[in-house]
């Protein structure tokens, strides 16, 4: 009984682990493209967060208006670059 359980475990693990090798390259390439999009999406979200935080710094008195406007302009420019890169993938 114990031997059967062990053999079944070995078989399940072997099938699970080698599945991508059997699926071949096509699936891997598809995965590669969505990976690039996911990275850009994450970078865009991070940039948006920076823009919001800069605004909050201004609202809570840490930044004066001129400094905030300068930072905001730069950060939005960087966000636009990320959107362009995302569109280029489409």
């Amino acid at each position, binding site marked *: 009984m114990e031997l059967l359980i062990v053999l079944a475990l070995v078989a399940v693990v072997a099938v699970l682990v080698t599945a991508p090798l059997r699926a071949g390259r096509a699936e*891997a390439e598809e995965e590669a493209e969505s990976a690039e999009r996911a990275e850009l999406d994450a970078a865009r979200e991070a940039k948006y*967060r920076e823009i919001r935080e800069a605004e909050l710094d201004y609202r809570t008195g840490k930044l004066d208006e001129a400094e905030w406007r300068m930072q905001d302009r730069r950060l939005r420019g960087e966000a636009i670059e990320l959107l362009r890169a995302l569109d280029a993938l489409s």
Partner: protein
Amino acid sequence: MPTVGRACLLIALAVAVYGIGASLYGARTGRREWVASGRRAVYAVGAALGLAFLLLEVAFARSDFEFALVGSHSSTTTPLFYRLTGMWSSQEGSLLLWATLLSAWSSLILFLTRRRLREVAPYATAVLLGLAAFFVGLMVFLETPFAQASPVPAEGVGLNPLLRHPSMMIHPPMLYSGYTLFAVPFAFAVGALVTRRLGAEWIRSTRPFTLAAWGFLGVGIILGARWSYTELGWGGYWAWDPVENASLMPWITGTAFLHSVMVQEKRGMLKVWNVSLVLATGVLAILGTFLVRSGILESIHAFGASTLGTPFLVLIGVLIAGSVALVVSRAPDLRTEHRLDSIFSRESMFLLNNLVLVGICFVVFWGTFFPLISEALTGTQSSVGPPWFNRYIAPLVIVLVLLMGVGQTIAWRRATLAGLRRTMLGPALLALTVLGGLLVGGVTEKPAALVLFVFAAFVVGTVWQELWRGTKARRAMSDDSLPMAVVSLVRRNRRRYGGYVVHLGIALFFVGIAASSAFQSARDVQLRPGQSASIDGYQVRYDRPTGQVVAAANGGLERIDLGAVMSVSRDGKAVGTMRSRRSFFPSQSPEFGPVSRFFEGETTSEVALDAGLRRDLWTVVSPDINKLLPRVAEGDRVFARALRSEALSPAETANALGVAVTGLARSYTTAPPPATFRLIVSPMVTWIWIGAIVTLLGGLIAIWPAPSGAPGRVRAAYAARVAVDLGAAAGRPARPSTEMPASMPALDRASPS
């Protein structure tokens, strides 16, 4: 079933080794299918170890003594809760817990990043599998948790009585979760260094795991402190014990890393510092496990000591050498993208806070390893005690608390004088008010504690001000009510406000530590029933002794409890009745007689605690058993004669032993000798636990995923899309603009409100 458990470990080891090869081959050749196979190997290792873990848990739950580990660390009389958690009181079970947790976190991070970090992830996979292979290898070749007992005993030894405490049984999984979670950023840092992808992507992806590691390790440390305070019977919560210190060090460097990565994310600075910190944290996490498992330093955790020192030393050596080589070889890629604009900037404060934290870690490291260092240099092992640690760490902590407050009020890049005045004036006034109050109240005898209280007030002031101003700004932009505005503000800026709540918790925590250690009163007194002692306004009266024999679930004798009932009053008013006891668990060693073995085994103390927000009264009794010893020796002689003559059957012997031990306990209460009491009054200890809970709450807020800022793909000018996305994330309608960003309306003005 032990065979299936061993097979699971063998499968996990084989698959881990395969996965390392597949990941590295896939990374080197660019063949993604091999990378995917390596990732699946991590899932398979996780599944195999999860099954092994489950098998052992079931064996503990069923008291299946065919598993030798169950027999040596549990018994049928052990309550179910402690049977289920008894696994990690053993060396082998701890290793299995470590490897299982590591493989679970590894599976989770690799699943979440399966479409990201394409170049870095395969190397991180190899590192994570390498660590898993090391721990599984230890279990396969040196310390198997699935050894079969032969012959199978009818009853187990039971769990070490010192570990029969709820927090103690949750404490190890928390610590191990922290240690193993720190392996995730460690592995991705190695991957980033190998592939030279040293931007902020790997930091962002692993940040939740770093925060979770920090949180779990923090909870583990606090539970350990609580266990020490309520169970160990010495009256303190932190003894600078090597194993305590071992868990503190990665937590400190992890804290430093969580701050300094923000500088890299925002400014592209401190890259060398950040990778060095995260690599050091990973190594320190392994070092923490090594210190518990090796027994090279004398510790209250001696129950965990073993002979696994050499393999751990080899692993730590490889990790340090590999980390240093990687950082040095990638130095050109780690150049900073910007320089500090001003010393008065948030990045400067973060840098200073990092230097202080690393300084604290260095002091802890030096003090912890001083016995080994002194032995290597002088041939004599000597150690340093709590006063040494406190002398160096207290000033560093005071500076840290000040920086914590200043850092929250200061802007990135450069702070102006006007800006500093705007943000610091209110908190500074609060701090000065607290200073005045403390001076008027006469709190002047401990200047270090006084300064810490003032700085902590400054931190509380900055947190309050940030929350208030943020809420005001939120309300100006929306129609939210005050409570809703607070919730919305925190919900939409979780990292920032979660961090502020953490700082608030840490400030409370340090206030509790400073007050309880600087203003503590302690007395050891010997009292007879009816006598009283006073301490710090309390009068403690020893009313009567207690003595009882506690039976186990199977009817056997579990322990003897000898204790005291005390009535406590303060300034003439009754506070209440307190009970403390010392429990004597029988030794399993055959060298002791049937009666004396009850006084030669483990002992635990049940502390009497009257806890409050202002102060704790902590007492513990040490019963004097010397008067009982002649009767104990006589009991041993009587039972030895009876056993030799076989005059009594085993059942009759057990009954007679019960009667004899019950008689001993009763004699303690009828003719009680003087008992020794340790009385301690510590102000504000409760604030340590409150501070820890607030800190954890802040960590949870910070780790919770932020709401998505992109509701969908908007076909409009890019600048307008940024405004639309941000407006949607802020929960208000945005007015798209087709102008370039420089002339874009401010976010609040994008809203009709």
